[in-house]
C-alpha cells in the first residue's frame, strides 16, 4: 500500500525530532509524579514557587507555608493571634526585659534522629545571627546565648526588645537539625531540609511540587492528621480553581477576584479574613512636589478607601489608616479609615500654594488589579485637582528605586507581622531600611525606639497612638487597606483553623 510508504517516510521525522533530541540531551531522572489527592494525601496549592526551604534564607510567604509544616518553632500563634509556647514549655523574662530563660519540651528528636535540645536551639539562633542570614536583622539584639542545662538556655539581649517572642513565632524561631546543616552545607540544606515538625521532606520538583510525608515519631500525639502533604505550584488562578473542582487540589489560595465565583458553591468552604498586611502609597518627602506637607495631606484626604475596597477589591480587603491590622496592638481607633473629603483636599491644595500639582506613582508591573487600584486613586485625586501619572515598573526595579528614594510616589505594601514594631519601625524611623519615603522626624524616632523597649502593652499602645497621630499629620505614607487572606477548600476537609498570620497549619487538617 502506498500509504505505508508515506508512513515510512514521515515516521522517522516524528521519531528523530521528537524523541532523539530531548533524549540525547537529557536522559536522566524523569520527575516522578506527586502523590494524587487521595484520602491519605492532602494537596495544597501555592501560587508561587517557594524560593528557599531554609528558614535562614527564606524570603517569601510561600516558603513559610511549607516550612511551618516541616519545622517546629520555639513559639507559635494561636487562632486569636496570641503567642503560645511550641518547642518552649516555659519562658521567663527578667525584670529589665533583657534576659529570657527558655525551658524546652524534653525528648524531642529531629527526623534524622538527633536530639532537639538547648544546644540545637543555640546553634540555630547563632546561625540566624550570621550577617549572611536573612534573619540577621530580626535577631540583631541578641547579645549571647548560654546553654544552662540539657533543655534550658538563657538569651541575653543588648536592649529590652518587646517584639522578641513574636519574632520567634516565625522563621527566626524555627529549629532545624544542626547535623543536617553540617552534613549538607549552608547551601545544600535548603534542598533537603531536616527539622522536627509534623512532616518530613521527601522530594521537590522546582516550580512544580513539593512532597512531604508524616513524621511518624512526631512528639505531638495524633498529629499530623493526614499521611502525605503535597504542595503544588499553580501560578494560574483559573487553573487552580478547576483543579479544586476536579479534586486534584484540596486547598487553594485564590486571588480576591475569584471570590465571586467561589461563593455559593456548596462543595467548597471559603475563608475570607482580614490579615495583618497593609498596603498604601509611599510619598517621598524629599522630592517636589510631595515635599509639601499640605499637598500630602490633600492626597490623604482625597483617597476613597472604602470605595477602593468595594469597587476594585470587591470587599476582599479592609479599608485602613494605619499599619496595624486586626489583632495587632494599636489597631482599633488608629485604623478607622476616614471618609474621603474632597472639599478639605481642595482647600489643602490651595493652601499648599502649588498650582496644578502633578506627580508620578510607580507601581509593580504585571498585575491588573494593581493597575486598577492606581487608576481608582488617580480618579479620586483628580476630583481634588491633583494629577497623578502611573508608571508600572518591574518589581525588582521598584524595590531598588525605593531603596534609593528614586521616586515621587510608590505603591508598595508589607506582608505584616504580629508585633506592631515589625510593621512600623523599619518603615518610618530615620534612615532605616524600608524608609523609602526618606521621612525623618526626631519625635517619631524616639517614640518608636521607646515603644520597642516597652514591655507593658498598655504603655506601648499609648506610644503607638502618639506616633499615629503624627504620621496622620505628616503623611509620609498613605495607608489604604489591609489585605485579606482568602482560602478555599474542599468540604471533605475538616480541622482547618484560621490563624491571623495567614499560615496554613496543614498538619491539623483531616480528609474524609
Amino acid at each position: 500500500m502506498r500509504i505505508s510508504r508515506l508512513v515510512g517516510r514521515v515516521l522517522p521525522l516524528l521519531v528523530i525530532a521528537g524523541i532523539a533530541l530531548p533524549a540525547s540531551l537529557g536522559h536522566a531522572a524523569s520527575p516522578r509524579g506527586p502523590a494524587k489527592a487521595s484520602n491519605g494525601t492532602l494537596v495544597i496549592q501555592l501560587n508561587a514557587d517557594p524560593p528557599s526551604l531554609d528558614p535562614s534564607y527564606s524570603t517569601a510567604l510561600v516558603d513559610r507555608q511549607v516550612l511551618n509544616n516541616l519545622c517546629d518553632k520555639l513559639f507559635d500563634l494561636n487562632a486569636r493571634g496570641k503567642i503560645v509556647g511550641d518547642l518552649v514549655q516555659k519562658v521567663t523574662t527578667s525584670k529589665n526585659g533583657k534576659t529570657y530563660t527558655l525551658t524546652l519540651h524534653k525528648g524531642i528528636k529531629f527526623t534524622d534522629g538527633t536530639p532537639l535540645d538547648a544546644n540545637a536551639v543555640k546553634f540555630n539562633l547563632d546561625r540566624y545571627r550570621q550577617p549572611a542570614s536573612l534573619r540577621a536583622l530580626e535577631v540583631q539584639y541578641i547579645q549571647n546565648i548560654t546553654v544552662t542545662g540539657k533543655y534550658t538556655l538563657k538569651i541575653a539581649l543588648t536592649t529590652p526588645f518587646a517584639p522578641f517572642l513574636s519574632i520567634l513565632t516565625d522563621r527566626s524561631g524555627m529549629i532545624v537539625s544542626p547535623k543536617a546543616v553540617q552534613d549538607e552545607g549552608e547551601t545544600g540544606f535548603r534542598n533537603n531540609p531536616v527539622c522536627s515538625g509534623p512532616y518530613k521532606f521527601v522530594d521537590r520538583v522546582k516550580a512544580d511540587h513539593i512532597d512531604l510525608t508524616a513524621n511518624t515519631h512526631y512528639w505531638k500525639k495524633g498529629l499530623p492528621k493526614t499521611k502525605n502533604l503535597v504542595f503544588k505550584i499553580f501560578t494560574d488562578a483559573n487553573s487552580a480553581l478547576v483543579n479544586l473542582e476536579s479534586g486534584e487540589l484540596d486547598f487553594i489560595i485564590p486571588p480576591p477576584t475569584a471570590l465571586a465565583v467561589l461563593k455559593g458553591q456548596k462543595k467548597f468552604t471559603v475563608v475570607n479574613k482580614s490579615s495583618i498586611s497593609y498596603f498604601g502609597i509611599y510619598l517621598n518627602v524629599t522630592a517636589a512636589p510631595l515635599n509639601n506637607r499640605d499637598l500630602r495631606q490633600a492626597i490623604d484626604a482625597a483617597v476613597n478607601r472604602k470605595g477602593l475596597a468595594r469597587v476594585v477589591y470587591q470587599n476582599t480587603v479592609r479599608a485602613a489608616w494605619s499599619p496595624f491590622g486586626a489583632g495587632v496592638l494599636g489597631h482599633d481607633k488608629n485604623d478607622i479609615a476616614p471618609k474621603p473629603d474632597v472639599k478639605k483636599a481642595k482647600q489643602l491644595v490651595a493652601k499648599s500654594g502649588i498650582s496644578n500639582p502633578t506627580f508620578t506613582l510607580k507601581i509593580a508591573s504585571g498585575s491588573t488589579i494593581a493597575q486598577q487600584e492606581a487608576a481608582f486613586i488617580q480618579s479620586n485625586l483628580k476630583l481634588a485637582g491633583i494629577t497623578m501619572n502611573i508608571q508600572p515598573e518591574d518589581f525588582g526595579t521598584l524595590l531598588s528605586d525605593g531603596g534609593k528614594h528614586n521616586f515621587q510616589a510608590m505603591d508598595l505594601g508589607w506582608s505584616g507581622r504580629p508585633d506592631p514594631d515589625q510593621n512600623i519601625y523599619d518603615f518610618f524611623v530615620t534612615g532605616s531600611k524600608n524608609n523609602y519615603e526618606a521621612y525623618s522626624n526626631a519625635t517619631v524616632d524616639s517614640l518608636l525606639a521607646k515603644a520597642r523597649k516597652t514591655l507593658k502593652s498598655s504603655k506601648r499602645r499609648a506610644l503607638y497612638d502618639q506616633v499615629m497621630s503624627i504620621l496622620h499629620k505628616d503623611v509620609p505614607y498613605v495607608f489604604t487597606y489591609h489585605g485579606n487572606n482568602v482560602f478555599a477548600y474542599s468540604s471533605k476537609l475538616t480541622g482547618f483553623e484560621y490563624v491571623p498570620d495567614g499560615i496554613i497549619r496543614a498538619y491539623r487538617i483531616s480528609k474524609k
Partner: protein
Amino acid sequence: MTFLIRRIILTIPILLLVTIMVFSLIHLIPGDVATVVLGQEATPQAKIAMRHRLGLDQSLPVQYANWLGNVLHGNLGRSLTDETPVSAEIQQRLPVTGELALASFIVAILIAIPTGIISAVYRGRAVDYLATLFAFLGMSVPGFWLAMLMIILFALKLGWLPSSGYVAFTHDPGANLRAMVLPAVATGVRESAVLMRMMRSSLLEVLGQDYIRTARGKGLALRTVVFAHGLRNALVPVITQSGLLIAGLLGGLVITETLFSIPGFGRLIVTAIFERDFITVQGAVLVSALLVVLVNLLVDILYGVLDPRIRI
C-alpha cells in the same frame, strides 16, 4: 557530507551570538539581582557577599568570559535560588517537554495532513470550506482558552481525564498517557491549523503541475496520483514548517505547562526569569537555542530523504 560538516560548523557562531544576546539582555534588566533574590529582609553585608560570590562586582566582559569558560567545560552553573546544578534541572525537564512536544506534534500532524489533503483534493467544495473554517478557528482561538474549556468538559463534567499533573512514563505508562491527552490535544489542535493550510496550498500547487496531469491522463486513480505522485513533493514545505513548529514547541509550551501543571522546560525558564535567577535562564536559553539549531539541521537532512534531488 561536506554540507553537513559545514552546517555543523556554522552553528558555532550562531550559538555564540545567542549567548552574547542572552547575557546582555539579562544584564540590561534594571534592578539589583541581590535585592530581588534576597528580598527586603537582607542585611547590606549579605547583598554585597552575594554580588561578590556571583562576580557581579566585575565588569560585564569578564563576567561573560567566566561564564562561557564554565559552559565550555560543561558547567552551566548553579541556580541562584536553591543552588541545584542548572544542568540537572534541564535534564529533568527536557524529557517532559520533549514528550509533550512530540505528542502535540503527532496530534497536529494527524489532524493537519488528512484535512489538508482532503481540502486540496476537494477544493472549493463544502468540505474545503469546513476545513478552512476549522483552520481559522484554530489560529484565532487563544490556546489557554481552548485548554481551559477542554479541562472543564473532559476533566470536570465528564471526569474522563485528569485536569492536571504529570506522571513519568517509566513510573506508570497508563497514567502518563492519560495526563498527556488534554495538553497534547489542546496544543496540537491549535498548531495543526497552520500546518493544514500549508499542506493544502502546497498540494494544490503540486496537483496543478504537468506530471500530475500526465499521471491522471494515463488513467491512474485519483488516490494513487495524490498519494504516490503528489504528496511526497508537497511535503517539503510542510516539513520545514514542522521543524519550526517543533523548535517552537520545545521552548514555547509554557502556557500549556502552566495550565496543566506539568514540570516542563518552559516553566523552568519563566519561573527563573521571575526570580531573576539569571544563571538558570542563561543555561536554559542556551540549551533551547541548541535544540532549535539541531531541529533545523534535521529538517535539512529530511529534505534529502523526501526529495532525492536535494543533495546534502
